[in-house]
């Protein structure tokens, strides 16, 4: 154990309050290398943050494919209602493969649930949070590696329950991803509210436990394990995004956990948190619609669930986009060879988004029967949350201005993120305006809005991040040409899929309807839905370029060194891929992560660790 002189500034070493085995401040530990871990120790029971990050990445991508297939089925039904679906004849033999309305409600419920809780959150915070945080702050691992492992392992019961739900009687949950009671709590209300909803709630609770463990770990790691000299205001914006996201999860998620447990109790123990009095479902009174023969309590409030649910799920929207904003900021600066424009405003605006994110949840409930005076206050807070988002967009444009842009695949996806986020952000203003929202609430304009933010925004940022950090993960580059083909197709087909949904929404088309053309007002919208569906199929099929590129490059991509992009942040100081303990030399940070094109040196970038 050789104590290493810890350099100046805010990282004064302190030797009290130590937890041996968790790492001594300012010290080095002996490296236990040269013992190869077996397959199971390395890939399954790993405590290494990089491996856990990859576990999240792979399971996230598998669920992305599953959720994507559901989206295709939804689109098929919307273009050609009740036409037999190719390949589903075995499931619906009576109709030759045409799906049932029950199945359709289950499809969009599970599409939303899987994409949010099993794809976007695990990919952004689970995969990239795990992989990037220790590397970008110069730490050897997370603060609590075992807790980190449990964080992934608690996802296993979540996966189990979410998959199990498809095979129980009545099918999976079918109350929408928002699961509004009494539809979701009362068995007689929907087939999916038999056992499927219970599986859904169990799965959600386990995801919550996993996210909570992750969030505690991330914040502790970022605050307590930064390399000497790496002050908070020198952190890359990815880390800021992940840290603010973790704080949102810490403070908002437990409320959803409490709410979903209460809904679970409503279903299993027949409590009455969300069951109002005088309900009559399928001609059954509360006395008889509970599980078994037991009567259910009444006197609860369905609206309470909506408040609790959106108290988490609105911040969750920022959980889905803040890390993506961080990745985009880093990638834009690196590939435009220019310091990020307005670093501090970027940090402050992310914090403002998170702070305001806690007081805007009511905008999901303007038409719900909530007190209209509350609607007015929620409108003002919601409109104001567009301000920090606008500041971020202007700063990204400022970063590009005067840069020396290299249009590599990660940069293309990052630019696409900015472009798509502008659309998604601006369309949100309509929804924030209460009178306008009376008309457009729950129409396709809402669908367009959140798909522009989460799909065309966050998922494009995830693609950018995969292309960008792939060399760090596997020591190899992804193929540029195939990557560009992937980008061009994805960009075109994504816009063809989602853009016209704005106009569908203005025409009044409701979401979550299996066959909208039964209504006279919607009958003429079928051709445009057909166009959207064909675009969606093309977009889904186009991802084959990504899959092939990803797996091919993992093994046969071009081998590159530590810093292929000539980036300045700390992770590029580690070997590619980093070994156990990440860094093979001592770090000392002298500046922020965005010193590109500085006249001080001959090269066009100064790594954070270089002393001048």
């Amino acid at each position, binding site marked *: 154990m050789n104590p290493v002189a810890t350099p100046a500034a805010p990282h004064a070493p302190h030797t009290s309050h130590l937890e041996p085995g968790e790492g001594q401040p300012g010290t080095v530990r002996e490296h236990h290398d040269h013992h190869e871990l077996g397959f199971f120790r390395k890939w399954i029971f790993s405590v290494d943050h990089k491996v856990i990050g990859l576990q999240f990445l792979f399971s996230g991508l598998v669920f992305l494919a599953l959720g994507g297939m559901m989206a295709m089925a939804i689109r098929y039904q919307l273009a050609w209602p009740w036409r037999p679906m190719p390949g589903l004849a075995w499931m619906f033999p009576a109709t030759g493969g045409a799906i049932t309305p029950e199945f359709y409600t289950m499809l969009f419920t599970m599409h939303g649930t899987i994409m949010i809780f099993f794809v976007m959150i695990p990919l952004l915070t689970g995969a990239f949070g795990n992989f990037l945080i220790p590397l970008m702050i110069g730490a050897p691992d997370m603060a609590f590696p075992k807790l980190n492992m449990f964080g992934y392992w608690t996802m296993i019961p979540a996966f189990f329950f979410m998959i199990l739900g498809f095979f129980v009687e009545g099918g999976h949950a079918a109350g929408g991803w928002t699961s509004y009671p009494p539809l979701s709590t009362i068995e007689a209300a929907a087939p999916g509210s038999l056992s499927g909803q219970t599986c859904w709630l169990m799965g959600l609770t386990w995801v919550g436990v996993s996210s909570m463990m992750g969030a505690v770990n991330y914040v502790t790691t970022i605050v307590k394990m930064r390399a000497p000299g790496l002050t908070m205001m020198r952190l890359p914006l990815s880390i800021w995004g992940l840290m603010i996201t973790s704080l949102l999860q810490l403070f908002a998620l437990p409320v959803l956990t409490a709410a979903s447990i209460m809904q679970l109790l409503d279903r299993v123990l027949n409590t009455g948190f969300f069951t109002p009095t005088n309900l009559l*479902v399928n001609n059954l009174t509360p006395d008889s619609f509970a599980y078994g023969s037991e009567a259910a309590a009444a006197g609860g409030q369905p609206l309470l669930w909506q408040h609790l649910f959106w108290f988490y799920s609105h911040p969750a929207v920022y959980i889905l986009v803040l890390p993506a904003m961080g990745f985009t900021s880093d990638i834009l600066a690196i590939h435009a060879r220019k310091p*990020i424009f307005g670093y501090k405003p970027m940090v402050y605006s992310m914090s403002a988004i998170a702070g305001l994110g806690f007081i805007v949840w009511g905008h999901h409930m303007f038409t719900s029967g909530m007190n209209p005076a509350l609607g007015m206050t929620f*409108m003002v807070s919601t409109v104001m949350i567009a301000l920090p988002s606008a500041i971020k967009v202007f700063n990204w444009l400022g970063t590009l201005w005067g840069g020396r842009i290299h249009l590599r695949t990660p940069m293309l996806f990052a630019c696409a993120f900015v472009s798509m986020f502008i659309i998604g952000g601006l369309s949100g*203003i309509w929804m924030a*305006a209460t009178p306008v929202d009376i*008309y457009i609430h729950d129409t396709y304009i809402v669908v367009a809005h959140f798909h522009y933010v989460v799909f065309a925004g966050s998922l494009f940022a995830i693609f950018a991040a995969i292309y960008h950090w792939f060399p760090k993960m596997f020591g190899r580059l992804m193929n540029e040409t195939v990557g560009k083909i992937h980008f*061009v197709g994805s960009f075109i087909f994504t816009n063809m899929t989602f853009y016209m949904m704005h106009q569908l929404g203005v025409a009044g088309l409701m979401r979550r309807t*299996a066959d909208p053309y039964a209504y006279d007002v919607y009958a003429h919208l079928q051709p445009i839905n057909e166009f959207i569906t064909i675009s969606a199929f093309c977009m889904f099929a186009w991802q084959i370029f990504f899959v092939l590129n990803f797996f091919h490059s993992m093994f046969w991509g071009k081998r590159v060194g530590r810093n292929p992009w000539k980036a300045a942040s700390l992770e590029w100081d580690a070997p590619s891929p980093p070994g156990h303990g990440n860094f093979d030399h001592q770090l000392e940070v002298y500046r922020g992560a965005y010193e*590109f094109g500085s006249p001080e040196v001959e090269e066009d970038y100064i790594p954070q660790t270089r002393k001048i």
Partner: protein
Amino acid sequence: MRYLFTLLLFLVPALGVWTFVEADRWQLWFPQNVSSFGGEIDRLFNIIMYMVAFTFIVTEVCLAWFVFKYSAKNETKGAFTHGSHKLEMVWTAIPAVALLFIAFIQMRTWADIKFEGNFPKDGEYTREKPIAEVWASQFDWRIRYPGDDGVLGTVDDLERSWEFVVPVDTKIVFNLRTRDVIHSFFVPEFRLKQDALPGHTIPMWFEAKKEGIYDLICAELCGWGHYKMSGRVTVVSKEEFAKRMSEIKAEWFSNGKELGE
């Protein structure tokens, strides 16, 4: 290649604006408006749309232009700047004012439609004396009229399923209720949408300006049959309305139903 990528980024605002301009011609725009406050909602939508369109075009064109211009020569160093305090101030203050403006112009309309204090007070129908109670249940609409005595919940109440008949040019106040799960009362032509909440009676009002038959759509997921939970609102002249009410009454009491059943 950079021409292609710039073109793609530039096509976003170009095609984006074009589709909005042409949407009306493709019948992808608002259905006709027949309610008294619908025009106001459309106007607010359009005000926001013009402000949004301006921002959209400026930012997207800047993005495309910057990508094109600054990817041309990347062998040298770019501008070395960490930001500008002045610019940050400008692009914080201007959007802040614009956003507050958007928020404030909404309030009047919102209050007019939703606040109970602003409900019609002097007309034929008021908060205390609604024209009917609209009941939602899986998966149909039932409209309960108060009958001759004009009071709901008495023995002479009439029930009409599926069709909500109202007189034209009259301020209609009605109560929205649900028997089971959450539903939502949505008539696109009225620009009116409101969830029905179990255990609550929610008052609503509108004034139809044009006779006709309009689709009544359930706008909140209510189970497997949500897509077919349709009804209709029939707007008729005042004379016709009286006639229709007596028909409804005759029909209701002729179905073997006794008074008070």
